[in-house]
């Protein structure tokens, strides 16, 4: 009978369970809770309005809880929100706001509510999230916004200090974009991390004439300068880098060639940046007799600098003036930083097989700019608005792509014009095979905010041309051709022409090269 009892018990349980479940399901539901905002497990008295485009949150009670100062309610049209040291300006009905110096687009515009503005979720993420490190997790299933403070991360920082041409460049490289504040005082620059901690690089002594020391604390990088130094800072992406150019106060803020001071810098003086290809461990091509491309490009660049300054009202900057390895992106960064009017990268060529010979001039291919625009848009998507940012975010990206495209199209057209002049002058001056003007996705030309060309002045892999390139007289002819090309490019329109040192006459107009591509 015991077994029978057990069987009956099991059967009863099996029957009871579904009944219990059914009873549970059949119970009347608890009254639904309204939307809520929760910070650290505590519910905040924040009004939430659900709209088809997403929830809107009353800003004032959030400011009371998260910190900051909200002003400007009197006008009722625009509000100023100060979070730490960052000013946020937002207008009712306007999906574009400013956060510090950045223009930020929102998925929907803030609206006027009782007691102040109602703002969308991405407003909170792009203001309190970006500035103070809060995270905002919207849970639509129960209409709850859970706010939490982001835990501080440890970010590895790399330090590089390079001295070139009387200017020291300090580079702080981060694996991802940190939240930071820059404090600049005489003799000191400080990078203050706002939430994250630094994993500093291995301590090494800074031996530099302009930078006394670079020290690291958990949330602070301190760059100590010599007393008469001043600094300019800028950012580079991929990876994120903070770059500080340090130079003496008495000197011009950028390296200037020896004779440039004789020209009036406020007049029509143009800035030419010459980039001697390769350098350091990157030898470039090696000729049959062992001559390295990096050596000859530096010699040619120095000669070109001297001739340009002698002959034209230009300021000339070399990207490198010694046998140093210099990343390609830094070369264009130097040109951008100096607001150059022209960027000329000098190279000597090589080919597989020794037969190739002649000079050719490259400018950036439109394929490269297209890809770069895509890349820029992609990075905007990653670092900017979330995917659900909506039309405003998309329009902003479209606008940025359009602006990029317009700028690149203009630079490409000018680059092509200058490349044509260079090639024509080289053809005119030298008995070289005309290999024409070409386009290629060359890295050193990407990101240049000015007309930019890469000139291959001959094939160092060809024994005949290698021998010629080692001859100073031949190199002088090459340099002279480049000077004439620069002069013709910079030549003002006929009406504006003023008295400048005359250039040797060039016979004939710009020749069209068989290899010339169609205009971009």
């Amino acid at each position, binding site marked *: 009978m015991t*077994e029978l009892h057990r*069987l009956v018990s099991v059967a009863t349980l099996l029957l009871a369970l579904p009944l219990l479940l059914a009873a549970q399901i059949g119970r009347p539901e608890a009254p639904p809770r309204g939307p809520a905002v929760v910070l650290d497990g505590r519910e905040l008295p924040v009004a939430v309005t659900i709209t088809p485009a997403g929830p809107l949150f009353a800003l004032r009670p959030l400011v009371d809880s998260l910190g900051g100062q909200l002003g400007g309610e009197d006008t009722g049209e625009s509000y100023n929100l100060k979070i730490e040291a960052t000013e946020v300006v937002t207008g009712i009905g306007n999906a574009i706001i400013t956060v510090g110096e950045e223009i930020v687009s929102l998925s929907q515009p803030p609206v006027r509510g009782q007691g102040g503005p109602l703002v969308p979720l991405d407003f909170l993420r792009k203001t309190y999230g970006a500035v103070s490190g809060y995270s905002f997790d919207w849970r639509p299933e129960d209409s709850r916004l859970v706010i939490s403070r982001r835990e501080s991360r440890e970010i590895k920082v790399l330090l590089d200090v390079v001295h070139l041409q009387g200017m020291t460049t300090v580079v702080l490289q981060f694996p991802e974009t940190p939240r930071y504040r820059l404090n600049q005082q005489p003799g000191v620059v400080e990078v203050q991390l706002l939430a994250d901690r630094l994993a500093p690089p291995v301590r090494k002594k800074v031996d530099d004439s302009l930078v006394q020391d670079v020290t690291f604390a958990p949330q602070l990088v301190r760059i100590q300068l010599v007393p008469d130094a001043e600094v300019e800072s800028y950012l580079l992406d991929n990876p994120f880098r903070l770059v500080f150019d340090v130079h003496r106060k008495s000197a011009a803020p950028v390296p200037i060639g020896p004779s440039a001071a004789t020209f009036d810098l406020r007049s029509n003086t143009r800035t030419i940046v010459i980039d001697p290809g390769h350098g350091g461990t990157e030898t470039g091509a*090696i000729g049959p*007799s062992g001559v390295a491309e990096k050596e000859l490009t530096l010699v040619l660049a120095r000669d070109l600098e001297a001739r340009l300054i002698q002959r034209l009202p230009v300021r000339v900057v070399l990207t490198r003036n010694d046998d140093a390895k210099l990343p390609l992106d830094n070369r264009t960064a130097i040109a951008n930083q100096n607001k150059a009017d022209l960027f000329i990268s000098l190279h000597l060529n090589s*080919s597989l097989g020794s037969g190739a010979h002649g000079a050719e001039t490259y400018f950036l291919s439109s394929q490269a700019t297209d890809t770069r625009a895509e890349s820029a848009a992609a990075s905007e998507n990653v670092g900017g608005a979330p995917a659900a940012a909506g039309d405003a975010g998309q329009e902003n990206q479209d606008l940025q792509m359009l602006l990029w495209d317009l700028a690149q199209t203009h630079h490409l057209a000018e680059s092509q014009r200058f490349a044509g002049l260079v090639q024509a002058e080289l053809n005119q001056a030298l008995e070289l095979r005309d290999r024409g003007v070409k386009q*290629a996705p060359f890295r050193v030309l990407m990101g240049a905010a000015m007309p930019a060309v890469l000139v291959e002045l001959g094939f160092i892999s060809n024994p005949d041309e290698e021998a010629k390139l080692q001859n100073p007289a031949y190199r002088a002819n090459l340099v002279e051709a480049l000077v004439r090309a620069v002069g013709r490019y910079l030549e003002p329109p006929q009406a504006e022409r003023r008295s400048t040192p005359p250039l040797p006459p060039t016979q004939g107009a710009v020749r069209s090269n068989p290899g010339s591509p169609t205009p971009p």
Partner: protein
Amino acid sequence: MSRRAAGWVLALALVLVLGSLAWWWQSGRGGGRSGRRGAAAEEAGAAATERHAFDLYFPSAGGGLRAERRELQVSEAPKDRIRKVLEAVLAGPAATATPGDPPAGKEGAARPAPPGKGAPAAAPVAAPAASGLVRPFSPEVKLGGVELSADGTAFVDLRWPDHDDPPESGSTEEIQRVYSLVDSVALNVPQVNRVVLLWNGTQRITFAGHLDTSRPLLPDRTLLAP
């Protein structure tokens, strides 16, 4: 319920459980077998190879690329075709002369080795074949992994152990090397739109200081000799 009735209920339950197990065994295992048969048939299909003509683009001694028509034993699988094409390009043009052979005329002359530069990075890769075509890389450079993404991007890894960097060169040489691979793959395998080159498993900003190889490269027909 009598003890006898309870026994019948238990027996019935047991029969049901055993029946279910038998059904699962038949359907599951049988299905698995048929699945494996399907996969095997697919593999067999992919493995079935045929000779197919490809235009392989080799550096020419004059500085561009020139096609050499070659028949390769390939399957229908795009990845197999990419691999076979690349292996053939890396192996060099047909009847490649050895570096000791006399030069084949000015345009086809082999590049002499620079004196005192023992590094293979700067050494001549190979003398040109009678056709004037040249092997793009040193024979030690081998093909590593090959992947093809759904959007038509082929990822190609070149391996040269103990050589952190690709060979130093001028821009034309770099263009010849890179585009001999890019054009050979993208112009022969219809599923490939663009190519990402890696060196020892790493995508590089450039191979030799000129071409941007940090993003996919589209084929460039302008380099091809008519």
